[in-house]
């Protein structure tokens, strides 16, 4: 159930055909922007405008908890004194950019804790569902949960972060009928009730993936975070065609059948990714007013002139004014079906036919570099993983076509967050860019490296195997495309990725002509804000 006009969209998405009067198109370019004049006849796919948010999110959350979907009882009926309650929540990779306080997870968890207090539940533990992501810092936890929850739980050790390498606190629940191991956080799996609090920014998120991935170990994750799964997920953003989705669902059902009682709470946000100071980002170029142009010019000039580190810091401080558009609670699959409807309703844009060339501007931020550096591997993952796969039906670019990405792609890594990425870049990509080959030859040594495990468990590092997963995310695109070109990237970093480098969009189009001929069709993905292309 939802309160308010859940997920009601503003103006729908749009496919604009570029003509001579079309103003230049804004491309994200890392911490900055570029204006590109696309060839006449190109198509620009714009996302729908932000959906109308719920008028009373607090009431909507409480209503969802008491009116669950599927065969679940209301939350209040599931809570009793003396029980063990675990509340797991999505980590800092969601939403993007991080939202202005209060974070929606804080709002939901406060409501759940109120219910637990009313029922006299004392044994409550919070778990950040990290999977193999990095641990959150105290500041990040405070931002996600709010000071009140943090101060109530952290000092007593009841605010935890999932540790996929803490073998004493993992439990093997069995294997699916495909032989997939399901190994989970023991506290979560053995609690009387596991409440999972999700933010569903894209259609890959949520559902059984929340628990089956977020609270799992490497032993479990390797069954779907691999090249085979990613190549056979077309796309991994489309649940109906995603092998990643199917594997998580098999695991989720095994978890359910093993007796783990899950109360799933999923939320959707309105797509207002950037604050009013960056209002031009939420508008289409030909609708920019004088203020938008002035803001754009000011932002671009400042970002271009700032030292890269300062520009990065400035952009990383961006907090989105996201607002809640829906909240669903109850049984996992029923909840997720409704959530996916809302997400696709908010993000779907129908596009007729594929193009020879797909262009995209890549931002400073992806799920794995919040408060950090967008290293070259993450650039590849954002473009060829997330954006390329933002489709239903078929890719925006044809088989054998070309993707042109705009990003500075600096040869820069965060040694605290991404230590194994540095070695991956130096050791693995120098030998192969073939996902299957690196999986066979290198994955295990990185996954079991005691130093990476130590940093993952005690610091704020992504797990040693994580860069492999990011590269697997690109596997479908690499399998599908004839070439990948990066505009404005650091040449040696781009070359290390196995891509081609171009100084300007014109140069990139010239290079692309070797692959797709001299009169190609071109589609530009104008995102973020996010969209899902329904390609027919």
């Amino acid at each position, binding site marked *: 159930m939802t309160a308010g006009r859940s997920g009601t969209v503003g103006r729908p998405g749009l496919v604009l055909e570029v003509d001579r009067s079309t103003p230049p198109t804004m491309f994200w370019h890392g911490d900055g922007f570029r204006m590109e004049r696309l060839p006449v006849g190109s198509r620009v796919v714009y996302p729908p405008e932000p959906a109308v948010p719920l008028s009373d999110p607090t009431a909507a959350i409480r209503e969802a908890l008491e009116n669950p979907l599927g065969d679940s009882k209301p939350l209040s009926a599931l809570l009793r004194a003396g029980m063990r309650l675990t509340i797991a929540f999505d980590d800092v990779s969601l939403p993007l950019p991080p939202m202005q306080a209060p974070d929606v997870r804080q709002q939901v968890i406060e409501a759940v804790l109120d219910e637990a207090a009313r029922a006299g539940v004392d044994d409550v533990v919070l778990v950040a569902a990290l999977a193999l992501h990095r641990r959150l810092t105290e500041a990040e936890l405070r931002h996600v949960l709010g000071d009140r929850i943090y101060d109530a739980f952290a000092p007593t050790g009841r605010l935890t972060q999932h540790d996929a390498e803490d073998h004493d606190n993992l439990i093997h629940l069995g294997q699916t009928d495909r032989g997939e191991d399901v190994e989970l956080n023991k506290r979560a799996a053995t609690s009387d009730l596991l409440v999972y609090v999700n933010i569903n920014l894209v259609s890959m998120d949520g559902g059984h993936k929340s628990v089956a991935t977020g609270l799992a170990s490497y032993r479990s994750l390797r069954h779907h975070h691999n090249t085979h799964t990613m190549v056979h997920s077309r796309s991994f953003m489309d649940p109906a065609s995603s092998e990643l989705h199917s594997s998580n669902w098999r695991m989720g059902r095994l978890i359910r059948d093993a007796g783990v009682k899950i109360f799933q709470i999923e939320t959707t946000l309105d797509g207002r990714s950037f604050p009013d100071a960056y209002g031009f980002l939420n508008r289409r170029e030909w609708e920019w007013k004088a203020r938008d142009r002035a803001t754009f010019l000011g932002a671009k000039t400042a970002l271009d002139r700032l030292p890269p580190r300062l520009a990065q810091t400035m952009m990383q401080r961006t907090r989105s004014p996201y607002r809640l558009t829906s909240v669903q609670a109850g049984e996992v699959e029923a909840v997720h079906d409704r959530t996916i409807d809302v997400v696709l309703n908010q993000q779907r844009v129908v596009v007729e036919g594929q193009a020879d060339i797909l262009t995209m501007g890549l931002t400073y931020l992806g799920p794995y570099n919040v408060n950090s550096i967008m290293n070259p591997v993450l650039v590849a993952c954002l473009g060829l993983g997330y954006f390329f796969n933002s489709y239903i039906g078929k890719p925006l670019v044809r088989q054998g076509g070309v993707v042109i990405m705009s990003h500075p792609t600096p040869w820069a890594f965060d040694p605290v967050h991404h230590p194994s990425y540095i*070695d991956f870049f*130096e*050791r693995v990509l120098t030998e192969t860019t073939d996902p299957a080959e690196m999986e066979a030859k290198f994955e295990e*040594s990185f996954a079991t*490296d*005691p*130093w990476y495990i130590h940093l993952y468990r005690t610091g704020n590092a992504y797990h040693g195997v994580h860069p492999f997963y990011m590269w697997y995310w690109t596997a479908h695109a690499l399998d599908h495309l004839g070439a990948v070109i990066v505009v404005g990237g650091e040449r040696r970093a781009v070359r290390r990725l196995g891509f081609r480098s171009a100084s300007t969009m014109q140069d990139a189009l010239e290079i692309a002509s070797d692959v797709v001929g001299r009169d190609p069709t071109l589609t530009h993905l104008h995102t973020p804000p996010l969209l899902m292309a329904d390609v027919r």
Partner: protein
Amino acid sequence: MKALVVERSLPRFAAARLRSTLGMGPGGAVSPVRLADVDAPRPPGPGWHLVRTILSGICGSDLATVEGRSSRWFEPIVSFPFVPGHEVVGHVDSDPSDRVVLEAVLSCASRGIDPPCAACASGRVGNCESISLGALSPGLQTGFCCDTGGGWAGALVAHESQLHRVPDELSDTEAVLAEPVACGVHAALAAPEAEAATVAVVGAGTVGLAVTAALHRFVRPASLVVSARHTHQQKLAVHLGADVTVGSEGTVAAVRRVTRTMTVGGRLTGGADVVYDCVGSAQSLHESLAVVRPRGTIVLAGMPSPARVDLTPLWQREVKLAGAYAYGLEDRTRGARSGDGRPGGVGSGDGGSGDGRRSSFDMAFELVAAAGLGRLVSASYPLDRHEEALAHASSAGRRGAVKIVFEPGARRTPPSGRQSRSAQSRAREA
């Protein structure tokens, strides 16, 4: 005959050092080396032969000399004026069909000292205690002694104990590498614990590549990491047996990956069992200390210059630091491998001592042929273009080269530099 001669001239050495410090390379009007017309040296006694130089390499120690960077340690064990060049392939004047390479150390045998010192008696000629005694002027090697001449001339004299007959299957280009490769073999065998261990080689010039090839063929470490500044060096290292190659800034990370050790404050808690420092600079020794494990061994194979190095890790981690100089008779149990790469018996020829040991040169001949080390020779120059040759050698890494040699018998060639056919093709391959 034409010869390149180094004379004792402190102003010239000071000027050369200044040029080197300023990154100007060797040469110039004030260089301590000059091209001169000299008489061929006379054999100083029985058992000595006049050797006509075919090719003579430019070694790092030669460059250090002409750039004024050599340690003053050498002052009492060299004699001026001398003709440099100790990497030599030539033919004995009395038998032009007989090609020989020079075992450059001037040990007791060549100095007419009998009985020999304990080191020479045991086949460790590199450790000879008589290098400034006997019938010859001081000189640790041919190429640093005023009596013998050196390879950077049309001819030199050599004692029969210094000469090794070149196997027919080796070309001149390959044979000129026998001396530096023998040094590489000797260094590789200096740390028996390298067998089946994790080994790092710091530096991939001629010495580093020779050590790499020798380790791969004669020692068989479990894992061999080579740190090389230049891309062509990294490619060559892979061809010669390196399991992992990295740029010099990536050595610590690479050794960490291979050894799966932890780091504390950016320092490895473990590290490689054996590290071969094939550069000999403060930086390379610092790098070696950073990647060697506690109680591990560093073999200093590159000729060092005076350097400031923090030896605290050597003390705190009980690291062994061992020098590896020249050559001699090696432990024969570290046998050659047969052509299919499997461990095999000892090599052919008479390079053995009859007591289970084998000459470094014999092993070097085998290694040069088996590993195709002739490809390391990148260019050859006539003596009258010595400034270009020395500049090329001094910047070999940056210019995609490895070993530069003189060809004293060659006439002056156009400024592009003369490369032997095999050198040209191998340079391209490299």
